[in-house]
């Protein structure tokens, strides 16, 4: 290493030399980023590096990424200019995706010396710690045997449903397939969940309800065709930058109006206003989206009948529309809505605003229909999904689109933007309770038998699984705490994404026997793991498919090897797929299943991926099984047979295929860009109709009511909900009180309501709230642009440096009123826990990133930094989900992280 610091002159001369070169000459091949103008081959030639094709490992936009490899190590990332999603552009997270790859890696198989054993009731004394002394190293085979024996024992004694699994929207499609087979087929458990549950399931169940299939009908290319684009609960500029800038480019070029519905003035709002403030609108609402969507429908019905689809069309293509229109007309005029929501929204959204948006929406709808292209494109994100009534949110959007016919044309539609790179696949693979692969329910006998045959397991085994119940992921944690669940597998995810970490999740994990597959040595899951397997990560897998938000399947190539920070090969690191297969084989064998038949895959003995299974074989099984579903991919098999192009190779060459691709031609053309086009004269296109309900979509009026001007109903329900999570480790269990959740959902309430009267009392200061045990603030948890989730980007120096510290966004008015200064350290306290952060006020705060402004009475913190100070609970001060409430949407299972009642305490 060059001793640059000892001789500043060196640094200095290098520096000046570089400055001169940068100013004077044309840069030659400048390493990392000046390379996006190249495709994969060209990049490889110019850089002299091996180049692999992959989908970016971060958000659900799913940018095409080129991984630069040197000596089997990932050394750089370039955007793929040939990929239709990002066209050679990538955001700051993706461009630095190689940085955290080799940091803090888990290198050995670890077994906790004092393991919890729910069979005997023994609870480990060392849970909650992950120091070296609580683990011993073990061989992979030994650990595998421990896991298999214990699992088989629990299955014998307590039944298959006593085993749980949480998968991930970052696993490959193949691993998700195997993991689902492992749980539902081999173990015989319906307790399989995934972190996709907290991400997208409101959209999933909403789509199911309205369209009959979990199929987002849109493509990103619709952005460039749209006449009106709205973002609901979606800070796209931070969460999905490449998508946002496609929208921004389109707005700039074609002056399309936009709407953002968000309680904060986010970068998305200001970014669009920078382009043109006159046609950029912002609904600053908290929880009022359903009502406002209904009110928009009301104005359109009353004032713009031309924008409403004719009755014959509605009758032909949908059900429930009469009741919907009737309800809208009587209960959702803008005046009624603004008045009804006043308790929470304080009239921040006005009647005039609603009418303006309705006008724009109607105009765009008419324009789109006349041209046969364009119309309204509605995009929503996690801020919209993570509500007690998330499913109703989705349904409300779809209602409005059906009413105005903004569906089945290029340039319009309902676009749910997933948070994770492969959440769509987790949904498609059915890696959730009660689901089967390809958008089918476990109760669908015909498909269940088909899947049992494809999985090569006895049909009755899957039929038995279908009888089991699991109240989704938070309910599963409650079951664990109540003693109903005995063991859990964690694959490529973390428990800190769940709400109510301190009083629900961690006490539950302490009692359970936990098997963890992870890549980082100090990942929070290791605190509660009994057996730990080091996993390979993105870029290291020997292949695997991701599906991003426009239904695009894309392959993730990898080097097949893992390294630690010192550059030593991690021999024990395996792909999650391999570990899932191994577990299936060893558990299945103990259960007396014919494992050779279920898992016919063979480890490769030579080549760069020697010792690992071939994911392409599994993928071929998946494609074969998709036949006849509305996600049919078997056209790819035809292409393989006719042209001899391998499945992965097809994905590589086409830069992804959008499902479904049922025929040779469609597969060759890159799949199906849009769905549900039957009503626009596209009848001949495959899968054009709504797949269920007699080819009809379903209207359903979703209601919202806080119970009068003082929010009486809201307070009553929230009062009842507040008892859940108040006692650590004990009941009552919310899964036993679904009526309460249904009541909250049907009135579109929040899980908690702050002491708003207390907040409005200007005599009360910060310290009074603590004394009086009041929670005067709303608190929302979300994400920050520089980080993705809570593991990788906080281990990458470039991104961590930019936003290194937990912060709390505070409205300037509140800051002044309570005498809190920018940069001050405070503690945020809810009924269930607390965390610390720095106060950031306004957009010129010294506390980074200072981009968003909340409304008075609303606080915001990102969850990305939850473990950036330390994963160790004793030292951790930033774990935000300690304060979140466990209440979930009884249909979708999603919790609401955005409306927590909190107070600020000075430190």
């Amino acid at each position, binding site marked *: 290493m060059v001793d640059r*610091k*000892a*001789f*500043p*002159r060196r*640094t*200095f*001369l290098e*520096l*000046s*030399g*570089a*400055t*001169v*070169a*940068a*100013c004077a000459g*044309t*840069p030659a091949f*400048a*390493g*990392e*980023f*000046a*390379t*996006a*103008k190249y495709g994969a081959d060209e990049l490889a030639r110019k850089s002299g590096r091996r180049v692999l094709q992959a989908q970016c490992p971060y958000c659900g936009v799913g940018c095409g990424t080129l991984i630069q490899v040197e000596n089997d190590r990932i050394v750089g990332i*370039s*955007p793929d200019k040939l990929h239709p999603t990002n066209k*050679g*552009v*990538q*955001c*700051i997270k993706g*461009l*630095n995706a190689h940085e955290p790859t080799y940091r803090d890696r888990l290198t050995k198989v670890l077994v906790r010396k004092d393991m919890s054993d729910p069979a005997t009731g023994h609870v480990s004394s060392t849970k909650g710690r992950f120091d070296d002394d609580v683990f011993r190293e073990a061989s992979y085979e030994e650990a595998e045997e421990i896991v298999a024996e214990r699992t088989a024992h629990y299955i014998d004694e307590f039944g298959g449903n006593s085993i749980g699994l949480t998968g991930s929207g970052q696993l490959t499609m193949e691993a998700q397939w195997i993991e689902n087979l492992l749980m539902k087929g081999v173990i015989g458990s319906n307790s399989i969940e995934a972190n996709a549950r907290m991400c997208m399931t409101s959209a999933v169940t909403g789509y199911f309800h309205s369209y009959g299939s979990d199929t987002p009908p849109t493509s990103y290319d619709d952005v460039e065709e749209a006449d009106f684009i709205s973002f609901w609960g979606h800070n796209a500029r931070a969460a999905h*930058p*490449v998508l946002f*800038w496609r929208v*921004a*480019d389109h707005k*700039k070029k074609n002056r399309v109006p936009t709407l953002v519905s968000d309680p904060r003035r986010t970068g998305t709002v200001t970014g669009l206003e*920078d382009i043109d403030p006159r046609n950029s609108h912002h609904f600053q609402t908290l929880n009022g989206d359903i009502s406002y969507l209904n009110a928009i429908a009301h104005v359109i019905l009353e004032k713009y009948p031309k924008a409403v689809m004719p009755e014959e069309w509605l009758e032909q293509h949908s059900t429930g529309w009469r009741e919907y229109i009737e309800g809208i007309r009587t209960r959702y005029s803008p005046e009624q809505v603004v008045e009804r929501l006043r308790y929470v929204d304080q009239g921040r959204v006005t009647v005039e605003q609603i009418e303006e948006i309705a006008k724009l929406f109607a105009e765009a709808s008419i324009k789109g229909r006349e041209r046969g292209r364009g119309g309204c494109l509605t995009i929503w994100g996690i801020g919209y999904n993570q509500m007690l009534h998330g499913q109703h949110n989705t349904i409300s959007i779809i209602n409005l689109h059906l009413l105005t016919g903004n569906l089945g044309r290029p340039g319009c539609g309902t676009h749910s933007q997933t948070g994770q790179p492969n959440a769509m696949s987790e949904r498609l693979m059915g890696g959730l309770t009660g689901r089967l692969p390809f958008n089918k329910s476990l109760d669908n006998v015909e498909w269940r038998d088909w899947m049992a045959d494809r999985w090569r397991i006895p049909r009755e085994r899957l039929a038995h699984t279908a009888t089991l119940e699991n109240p989704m992921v938070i309910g599963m944690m409650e079951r664990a705490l109540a003693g109903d669940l005995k063991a859990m597998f964690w694959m490529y995810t973390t428990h800190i994404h769940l709400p109510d970490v301190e009083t629900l999740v961690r006490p539950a994990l302490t009692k359970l026997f936990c098997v963890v597959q992870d890549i980082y040595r100090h990942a929070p899951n290791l605190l509660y793991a009994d057996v730990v397997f080091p996993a390979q990560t993105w870029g290291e897998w020997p292949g695997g498919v991701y599906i991003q938000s426009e239904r695009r399947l894309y392959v993730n190539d990898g080097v097949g090897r893992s390294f630690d920070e010192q550059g030593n090969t991690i021999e024990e690191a395996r792909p999650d797929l391999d570990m899932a297969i191994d577990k299936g084989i060893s558990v299945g064998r103990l259960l007396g299943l014919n494992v050779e038949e279920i898992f016919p895959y063979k480890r490769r003995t030579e080549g760069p991926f020697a010792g690992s299974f071939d994911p392409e074989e599994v993928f071929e099984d998946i494609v074969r099984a998709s036949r006849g579903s509305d996600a049919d991919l078997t056209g790819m098999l035809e292409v393989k047979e006719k042209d001899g192009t391998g499945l992965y190779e097809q994905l590589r060459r086409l830069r992804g295929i959008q499902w479904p691709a049922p025929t040779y031609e469609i597969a060759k053309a890159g799949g199906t860009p849009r769905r549900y086009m039957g009503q626009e004269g596209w009848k001949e296109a495959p899968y054009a109709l709504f797949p269920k309900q007699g080819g009809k979509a379903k209207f359903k009026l979703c209601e919202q009511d806080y119970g009068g001007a003082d929010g009486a109903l809201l307070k009553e329900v929230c009062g009842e909900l507040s008892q859940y999570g108040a006692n650590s480790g004990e009941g009552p269990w919310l899964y036993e009180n679904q009526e309460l959740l249904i009541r909250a959902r049907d009135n579109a309430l929040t899980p908690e309501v702050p002491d708003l009267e207390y907040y409005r009392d200007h005599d009360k200061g910060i310290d009074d709230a603590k004394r009086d045990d009041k929670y005067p603030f709303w608190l929302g948890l979300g994400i920050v*642009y*520089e980080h993705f989730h809570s593991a990788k980007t906080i281990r990458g120096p*470039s991104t961590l*440096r*930019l*936003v290194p510290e937990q912060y709390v966004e505070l409205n300037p008015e509140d800051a002044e009123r309570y005498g809190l200064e920018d940069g001050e350290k405070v503690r945020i306290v809810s009924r269930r826990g607390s965390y610390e952060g720095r106060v950031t006020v306004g*957009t*010129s705060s*010294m506390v*980074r*990133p*200072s*981009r968003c402004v909340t409304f008075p009475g609303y606080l915001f913190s990102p969850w990305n930094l939850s473990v950036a100070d330390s994963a160790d609970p004793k030292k951790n001060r930033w774990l935000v989900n300690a304060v979140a409430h466990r209440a979930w949407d009884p249909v979708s299972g999603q919790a609401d992280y955005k409306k927590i009642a909190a107070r600020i305490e000075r430190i």
Partner: protein
Amino acid sequence: MIARGDGRPDRRALLLAGGRGALRLSVAAGALYVVGTAIRRGALARPLEESATGVLRPPGALDEPEFLAACIRCNLCAEACDTGCIRLFGPAEGRHTGTPFIVAEERACNLCLACTEVCPSGSLFPVEDASLVRMGTALVDERLCVSLNGTGVCGACHTACPLKNEAITQGNRNAPTVHEDACVGCGLCEEACIVHDRKAIRVVSGRSFA
């Protein structure tokens, strides 16, 4: 002492001696000037001068010749620097030896201004407000910046800028625009820039080292 036999001073001799003294003194002064100038022009004029664009001095530094003259090379600024960004030139740097500098690329100044408070020589002049500091000006290379050359969406420099929306504003794809009148030259943007091998945004001190 020059004295006559009677003990009284010999004025003539004294005068002569004085004259010789004056002569000696002027010769000495001349020699001093020659040697000094030679040193200034020659031995101490290290190559720093040729690459003057890059060196950042800590905030509040006097103009370069005055700074070099006034700085007593005492380390206090470096020891007061919490970020550790202030470094001192090593023994081979001629007249710069022992003077403080900052390589923003590796670690930038966070404008805490502690160095200006401890400086005992006044060569780092106390600055009332961080926005009045002028260490240099950030310069964006459009070909290297990912937001400007069309290969990415970044915005790191804007996020890092302590005077965001004044010194740096964001445009399409978070592309930065530096406003010279507001930029203090702290280098936080350069430190944060994600183009690692060759920073796309650099602070140029604009100091004259001649």
